[in-house]
């Protein structure tokens, strides 16, 4: 689906840690304004894909193109300044910093050449952060921390928002909130690359889905087609809606 509107394009990406190759040639595209989801079992390389795009893992070969520019070898701080924001696995909010400070630090990062929303504007967007403005990150619940991590990424007004397992470990009602938030952000025009373990959340949110196995994309397609394909779901994810 590589076209004029392609924001991010990953080609033959090979990457890993030390001598272990986790990614064995990943190809994927993210179209501007869409939600693209990466799904797959634990350990197939989903997080490593995000980290390789950001640059916190350096690819051995292959390329990452963003807004038509080659960003393969950029360090994470440079990549972030190109307009890619990551909401990492396990959220990683700064526990000793207040909610405002967490968001403020996100505002310092990201692209430097654009107008960004103010800290309070962003916090006001998140109903469960509003009353915790001055609480420390450590004192928030898991769901609130997740929202804070998203707010911290959003305040830099990124062109691409990468979310790594945003619903992990959250109660079902909070999962629903996160789902709504993702939808709302996308409706507002944010392009999203989502890694998700929860297949239902992944399929609901996505426009387009990539299934990863053993460090490669083994299947891709529009979300509704993938959702309807029990055989694929069963083979690569071990779940089947019809079971």
């Amino acid at each position: 689906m590589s076209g004029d509107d392609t924001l991010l394009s990953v080609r033959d990406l090979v990457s890993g840690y030390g001598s272990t190759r986790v990614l064995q040639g990943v190809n994927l595209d993210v179209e501007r304004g869409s939600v693209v989801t990466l799904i797959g079992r634990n350990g197939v390389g989903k997080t490593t894909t995000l980290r390789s795009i950001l640059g916190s893992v350096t690819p051995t070969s292959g390329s990452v193109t963003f807004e038509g520019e080659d960003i393969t070898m950029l360090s994470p701080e440079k990549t972030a300044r190109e307009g890619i924001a990551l909401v990492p696995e396990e959220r990683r909010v700064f526990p000793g910093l207040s909610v405002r400070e967490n968001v403020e630090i996100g505002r310092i990062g990201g692209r430097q050449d654009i107008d960004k929303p103010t800290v309070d504007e962003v916090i006001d967007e998140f109903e469960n952060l509003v009353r915790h403005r001055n609480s420390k990150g450590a004192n928030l619940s898991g769901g609130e921390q997740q929202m804070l991590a998203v707010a911290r990424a959003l305040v830099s007004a990124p062109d691409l928002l990468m979310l790594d397992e945003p619903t992990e470990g959250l109660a079902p009602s909070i999962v629903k909130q996160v789902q709504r938030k993702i939808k709302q952000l996308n409706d507002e025009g944010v392009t999203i690359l989502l890694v998700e373990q929860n297949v239902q959340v992944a399929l609901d949110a996505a426009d387009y889905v990539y299934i990863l196995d053993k460090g490669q994309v083994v299947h891709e397609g529009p979300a509704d087609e993938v959702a309807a394909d029990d055989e694929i779901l069963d083979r690569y994810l071990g779940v089947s809606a019809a079971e």
Partner: protein
Amino acid sequence: MSVASAVAEQVLNGLVVGMVYVLLAAGLSIIFGVMDVINFAHGELFALGAYFAFAIAGPLGGAGFWVALVVAPLLVGVVGMGIERLTVKRLYGRDPLYHILLTFGLVLIINDLITSVWGKSAQPFPIPAVLDQPVALFGFNYSLYNYGIIIFGSILALGTWLLLNRTRFGMIIRAGSEDREMVRNLGINIDRYYTLTFGLGAALAGVAGIVLGAYQNVSPTMGSSVIIPAFVIVVLGGLGSFRGAVVGGLFVGVVQTLARTYTPFLEGLIVFLLMIVVLVVRPKGLFGTNIGAGEHHDGALLHGAGGGVLSSATRAKLGYAAVGVLVLVPFFAELTGVTYSVTLLEDILIWALFALSLDLVLGYAGLVSLGHTLFYGVGAYASVLTLMHFSPSVFVALAVAVVVCAVIAWSVGYLSIRVSGVFFAMITLAFAELFYNAVFKFDFTGGSDGLFGVDVFYGLAGLGIDPREFEIPLGIMTIDGGMVQYYFLLAVVVGSYLLARRLIRAPFGSVLQAIRESEERASFIGYDVTAYKRRAFVVSGGLAGLAGGLFAANNGYVAPSFLHWINSGEVIVMTVLGGMGTLYGPMIGAGVFVAAEDILSSYIEQWQLVIGVLFVLFVIFVPRGLVSLPQTITEHSMFESAVGDRTSVKDAEVERHD
């Protein structure tokens, strides 16, 4: 003067010293909190501040002090940033213990630079006349300068707090100390902030140096005399905690001053006792959180060369050859009249034994004992006291030294091995300092003079050799008492090496190596990791005591300097220089270090500087030591450009956080 105002004056004096400590400890603590760097060179940056101010203020006269107060800290800040950029930066991602080694090398360098520029003796640094007068406040007269220090220090501490908590810079620093990779991921170049932070810490140390220099005087030893109390404060307050540094600094300043006046016996001891109690009861310190301490991982890179350096057959041959040469040296010395070389070799052998003992804990059990000279010094005192009071036999004296040190090691180990890493290092340092300060206090240890003039007898119950009367003519030369002493020493050192090697090849040693590879796994196949480490520490303490005992017996004296922390630093330098985790490596390291010191010091005055620079280069480029050189050289020529620099740095970063 009433009792109340006398106490008040002492408390004020304590606050003055405390303020200096606050400024010093704040920098130390911030640098640790943000970068995990334990900066041993902080005391030298402090001294540098005083000397820069001294150099600036002198020629300018009246207003000079004020100019210096602004300019000198800035200069020290620049020096700090330079140090970070050139050296410290290269070690991020390695075990934090490498920073201890690196900054110890920096201590040698900066200290030598100071003495070569400004001389070795203390010099007066007058305070401006305006401040040099008493003011009457609260019913008694007190120096305006001292009030000034308290006020100025408070303002600076408050300013630093505001900088950390109310500015963008401070926010990034705090975020970085919690999760530096995440800060990078947000698009912030945290490395730039590291450099600034190091500069800030250095500048604060510089201010403290100026303040204290003008309060007392400037001297090249001022750095080494404050660095240990500063560590105590940082540990007391909690590593990385600014609030802890402030409270701890003032507290230690006041306690020290009050102790000096009211319980002179406890002066110098009380602070270390406090530190030990705090570390045992509450290892994270009074205000510490687990955030900083939690990031530590067991010394993944604090590894020796292990095997694999030359074949074991080659090593054995080289070993025999070395012992052969050592056996023959006295004969050549006798024939050529260069008896001096024997004295040098005796020094080398003793330090080799000391380094060997450290290697058992540092290289095999992964414990950084920063106070290893505790055992060296106590062994020396124990053997001299035995010789003086109980038995002239060197065998008895050395046996007592070994046993006493083993018992102390067991006790220290019992208290401290369960706390890990940096804390263990700090506790051992505190114990060594406690003993160092204690020997000054007692008559039976000879106070600051030490104990002199003991004679030894090489035998038991009257049967044996008295070196003073021993002489066997042998053709053109004589075997005299000096040779007996030398051969006895050689035999003990070679014997200790063989014993250590045997320990390492026994089940005990195999478990130590397992622990070094993976502590967690060793525990989960059924080994009591703590118990094994403690046993290694006991053996190591005993051997270090043997080294100290030998030195004291050979030279017939012992002095408090045997317990000075600089020895602990030097023996670590030797161990790392040679290649830890190999037993023979540290012994080679000791030989090279002592010989280099001896040769360099007879040719150039700045020998410390040269050794410091060499050591810093070693820590950065040859972390596995001299014994790894053959391997390193082969590898370099084989895979010259295999991996790009950037990739490897980034990978290290990733592995750290995964």
